[in-house]
């Protein structure tokens, strides 16, 4: 099975966000970056499918030059090769532009399966995977918690049986023919981390750089980003941990009356 995994580089969760001077994005020149977490689960699922069914895992990222970091990381975890659709404008591009850039790199490769994370930790569109499926003419399913890839199922045509997460603890199985695109939910598997051997091996693996071939124009523009106003009056309790804890318990007992004496 030939599998593409679309991955994104995002700022780390621990990095203190700072808004850029133009106030339309963050000032990320001195940020630290990591692999978008849902994409890490998509990569892990692809590696497991390859271990079971054979084939190839290709990681694809649309982003600026620094995105090489997460491609290298994915290669160290076990992906076979990487494609980097490189352009500075892709750092904060909208879902249509990103999906178009990815589609250009994926279309002629003849993948059986394309995986993406459910959504990114930065823009959080939750759109790129599904838009990409539409652009590639593939059937899709989202928020996937289990993948059964048995080429012998169905009426001669290769297919997948996947478990979708619905809301409120409900799930649903569905089948779809290959080639197909799935967006993967966090927690579908237990992640592996790169070994020293993997890191060494990754140095010899190919990262092919391509320019965005597509001509998509953005469907949305960010006019401003800003820290949200607090909706509620939060009483912040200061002091040492002991002082703050004491004040909190007293308030929960006497003011909010939600715990007993």
């Amino acid at each position, binding site marked *: 099975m030939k599998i593409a995994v679309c991955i994104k580089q995002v700022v780390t969760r621990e990095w*203190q966000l700072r808004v850029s001077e133009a106030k339309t994005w963050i000032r990320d020149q001195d940020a630290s970056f990591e692999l978008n977490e849902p994409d890490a689960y998509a990569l892990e699922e692809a590696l497991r499918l390859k271990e079971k069914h054979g084939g190839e895992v290709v990681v694809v990222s649309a982003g600026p030059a620094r995105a090489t970091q997460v491609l290298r990381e994915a290669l160290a975890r076990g992906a076979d090769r990487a494609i980097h659709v490189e352009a500075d404008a892709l750092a904060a591009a909208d879902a249509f532009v990103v999906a178009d850039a990815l589609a250009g790199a994926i279309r002629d490769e003849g993948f059986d399966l394309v995986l993406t994370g459910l959504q990114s*930790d930065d823009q959080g569109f939750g759109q790129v995977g599904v838009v990409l499926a539409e652009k590639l003419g593939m059937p899709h399913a989202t928020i996937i918690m289990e993948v059964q890839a048995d080429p012998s199922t169905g009426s001669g045509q290769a297919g997948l049986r996947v478990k979708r997460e619905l809301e409120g603890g409900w799930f649903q199985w569905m089948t779809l023919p290959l080639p197909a695109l799935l967006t993967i939910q966090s927690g579908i598997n237990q992640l592996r981390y790169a070994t020293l051997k993997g890191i060494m091996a990754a140095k010899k693996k190919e990262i092919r750089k391509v320019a965005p071939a597509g001509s998509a124009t953005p*469907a949305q523009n960010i006019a401003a980003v800003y820290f949200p*106003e607090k909706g509620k009056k939060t009483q912040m309790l200061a002091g040492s941990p002991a002082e703050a*804890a004491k004040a909190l318990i007293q308030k929960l007992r006497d003011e909010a009356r939600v715990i007993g004496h």
Partner: protein
Amino acid sequence: MILVVAEQREGKLNRASWEAIAAAQQPGGELKVAVTGSGVSDVAAELAAAEASEVIVVDALALADYTADGYVTALAVLIEQERPAQVFFAHTYQTRDFAPALAARLGRALITDVTAIRNEASGTVYVRPVFQGKLNADVTAAGPAPHLITIQIGAYRADAARRGASAAPIRNAGIAVDASAIRQKPEAPFKEAKQAVDLSQAERIVAVGRGIKGQEHLKLVEDLARAMGAEIAASRPICDAGWLPMDRQIGSSGQTVAPKLYVALGISGAIQHLVGMKGARTIVAINKDPEAPIFEIADFGITGDLFEVVPAMIAELNK
């Protein structure tokens, strides 16, 4: 005209559809409500209570079970027929499954997870969270109408949706869907049997997030829960890691709770978590990051190391 696409499953209307209707009624222009499925006349009658010019039914056997292909095909035809200026959806898992493909097929903007809408002289501004809710973005749609908008669950109040003086007329759109063109074959939805804990009945909940760092530290959380007479719960990453069972998870993919007291320990407050607990009467947040979004909805907050604050709380409670 704004077209709201309501959501039903097995003939039951998703309550979040009323929130999308409330959002669409806000500017005060013409509103139509559509519902897709097979044999959904009861849902259509329920929706006809809304103050709307009409309810449109897209009824086809091929739409009896939800599939992305079926919905994209049917709604693309409906939108071309009706030519609305905007199409509103509730930002549910189902919407997330098909709306991006619908937008791509129509070649129209899709703005997701919208929490507020401002109509300004220069055009409509949509507010949506970015960076897991740590920042808000003001977003404008580019390109021709209709623009597709998904409304975050809980951002508008369902009971704020205006009801009409009389029932809105119901019309069948007469859209045919070819079942053989649907590539996804769904099976019946099910619940995992192991769902043993019903946190919705808990009066007090102590919930833990990434800040707990390791499974070995959960003992500390258990001690606090015991001292408070609370149930233990968690944000998604803790259950993903297998540190607590999935049925202890609060949020859009887990349980929704509204206890008297909710204590969030080391939970940053991503929107997927907040939708599951923001109905709690009193919310306490303890987090080392003063910018964590959880503080925006907390009644009481402590910026600090939970490994120092929680033992002090336990000591205070046991005095």
